[in-house]
């Protein structure tokens, strides 16, 4: 019975704060509405600086071919390497394509010619991929010339045909990949920061003293802190489902119940973790900085943005301790692959373990007396 009143108190405290209810409702909606389109690695609109020393029909045909390929945007045409390089330095161009003055002559007489590609590789993926695209276009162009000049009687080419196939997301839509993960991030931010600030806030305001002199048991105290966040987690999750469905036309391929089950265990574990930090912190500031540190670590190491498999061994090891990782795996599997709970038993059990561990710790570390 006591528990009911305690929970009622928590809800009242949350609703009375002018900011918290807004953050719980508006923040996830806004993020999910706008930001999945930002989380996009697709490399397009590569800016190209062209340095054509040849000024020949062959070189202009090549430039035309590059421009019409769809990957490149010619943002700079110059007549010396220095000014081309400057445009790369100022981020106006990503790649310089330099066609030497003897280009046509070499191609016609020697039957082989060179061009120079200088790619900005500060972002390795972009620079690498850009120069690969450009090489591909050069290849096409040379085989085009070849077929025009070399008689068909020559020995037949050996051709490999590569047929790529993308499972689960054949059109490679990015929101499909990012939305489920951003949902997890929202859950993590709200159900992580709020509990971390909760108990320590009562400490600073002195209201915890009042709680300490009541006969409330440690267990019911922690439970009364935990249950409201569980409830809030459901609100956040439902809002996210709604946006995913209405804006991105995205519904889980699998059973939505599976998501609810795993997500509810996640919220319990993560809020429990927040409460542990809150128990140990002496000031709100301390609690926030601690939670902030763990939050960023968990988010960046969870595979949300960059694949876990590419991380060094020790980082992969750390990623096992990020509760976010398990929910992200489950979320993506259910949304995209339609996995069921039995296929996801490992993440489920891991989260269950976290939930038990952190919440027992929260109960133990909550002390009624100040030592």
């Amino acid at each position, binding site marked *: 019975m006591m528990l009911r009143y305690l929970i009622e108190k928590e809800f009242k405290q949350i609703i009375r704060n002018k900011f918290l209810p807004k953050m719980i409702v508006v*923040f996830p909606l806004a993020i999910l509405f706008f930001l999945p389109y930002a989380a996009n690695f697709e490399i397009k609109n590569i800016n190209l600086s062209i340095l054509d020393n040849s000024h020949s029909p062959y070189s202009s045909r090549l430039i035309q071919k590059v421009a019409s390929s769809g990957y490149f945007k010619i943002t700079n045409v110059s007549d010396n390497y220095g000014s081309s390089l400057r445009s790369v330095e100022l981020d106006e161009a990503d790649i310089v394509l330099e066609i030497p003055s003897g280009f046509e002559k070499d191609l016609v007489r020697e039957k082989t010619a060179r061009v120079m590609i200088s790619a900005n590789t500060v972002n390795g993926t972009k620079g690498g991929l850009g120069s690969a695209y450009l090489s591909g276009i050069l290849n096409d162009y040379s085989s085009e010339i070849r077929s025009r000049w070399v008689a068909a009687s020559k020995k037949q080419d050996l051709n490999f045909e590569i047929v790529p196939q993308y499972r689960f997301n054949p059109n490679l839509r990015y929101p499909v990949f990012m939305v489920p993960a951003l949902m997890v991030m929202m859950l993590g931010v709200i159900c992580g920061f709020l509990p971390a600030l909760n108990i320590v806030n009562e400490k600073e305001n002195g209201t915890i003293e009042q709680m300490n002199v009541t006969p409330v048991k440690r267990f019911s105290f922690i439970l009364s802190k935990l249950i409201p966040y569980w409830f809030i987690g459901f609100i956040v999750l439902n809002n996210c489902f709604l946006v995913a469905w209405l804006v991105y036309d995205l519904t889980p391929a699998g059973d939505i119940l599976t998501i609810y089950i795993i997500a509810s265990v996640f919220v319990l574990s993560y809020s429990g973790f927040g409460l542990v930090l809150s128990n140990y912190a002496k000031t*709100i500031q301390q609690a926030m900085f601690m939670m902030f540190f763990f939050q960023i670590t968990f988010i960046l190491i969870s595979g949300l943005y960059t694949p876990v498999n590419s991380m*060094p061994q020790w980082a992969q090891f750390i990623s096992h301790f990020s509760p976010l990782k398990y929910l992200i795996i489950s979320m993506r599997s259910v949304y995209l692959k339609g996995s069921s709970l039995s296929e996801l038993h490992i993440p489920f059990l891991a989260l269950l373990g976290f939930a038990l561990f952190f919440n027992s710790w929260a109960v133990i570390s909550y002390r009624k007396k100040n030592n």
Partner: protein
Amino acid sequence: MIILLILPVIMLILFGFAITTEVKNTKLAVYDPSKDVATRSIINRLQANEYFILKKFIINPNTIEDEFQKGEVGLVLVFPERFYENLLHTGEGQIQLITDGSDPNTAITLTNYATNIVFAYQQELYKTTTIPYQISPEIKLLYNPRLKGAYNFVPGIMGMIMMLICAMMTSVAIAREKEKGTMELLLVSPMKPIIVIISKAVPYFFISAVNLATIIILSVYVLDVPVAGSLLWLIIISLIYIFLSLALGLLISSIVSLQIVALLISGAVLLIPVILLSGMIFPVESMPALLQWLANIVPARWYIMAVRKLMIKGLDVTAIYKELIILSSMALFFIIVSLKKFKHRLE
């Protein structure tokens, strides 16, 4: 307070090493019913590469779906029957590359890697005949020839850590005085509000300057990211950025009056746009126009651009005029607005 000094160090080391968009160590499964010279050499080539690890041979093509469901393999290579024989007779050889498209970035990258490896083998088969009309590109990788992920991410992480920590420090310091009521005392004292506020910010400015020094030292000596350009201007623009972030914290705390709210705004609400829109992980140029516009008002974006130019590209101040002007005017804007707000409270 010690946590304020240690936090950036741990985060920089952690993410400088761990965060990379490269795709490595992908588990490969092969369905190879022909088992001939050509298929074997293609498999060997893939295996010899650091991108792929050969996990298993699939006997029954119907189990490919299950492999992906289990999420163990990232790429399945499917050869037809009598691959080499057909290649010699018809000149055509078809290879299927099946990837898990649920992560489009990884899927495209893996397909590209594997395609390049297969084509390299094709070139080798060609070797006996010389091809006429060949245009060969000479590729030069500027600034980051070894394609190290840290070169791209270290400036981003610097931008993220400094912005958030500075904003959190100041916003909570003033909100705390407000919450406890001591702010009123300070404001009714004969000191001008501007002095009160600046004296609040000065200690955090020093802490941040120490953080900046440790971050730069760590980048150079631990993460091997050089300061190729002007160190002086790197420090100047970083100090402007720190000032800007502190001013942003002041602005937040001048609007709200509770510590929790101040911290949630400066930590949690700022966190997501700073990660997503700053160009730290995702290139801003690939975003839709609306988001690019939004990204322009994220200060971290300009700072990260400037740091990449100074540290990685090795340029001098002439390349970062634009960033300098934008960051300074943002800082000025924040500080003026927050001062206005504080004066208002005094009346």
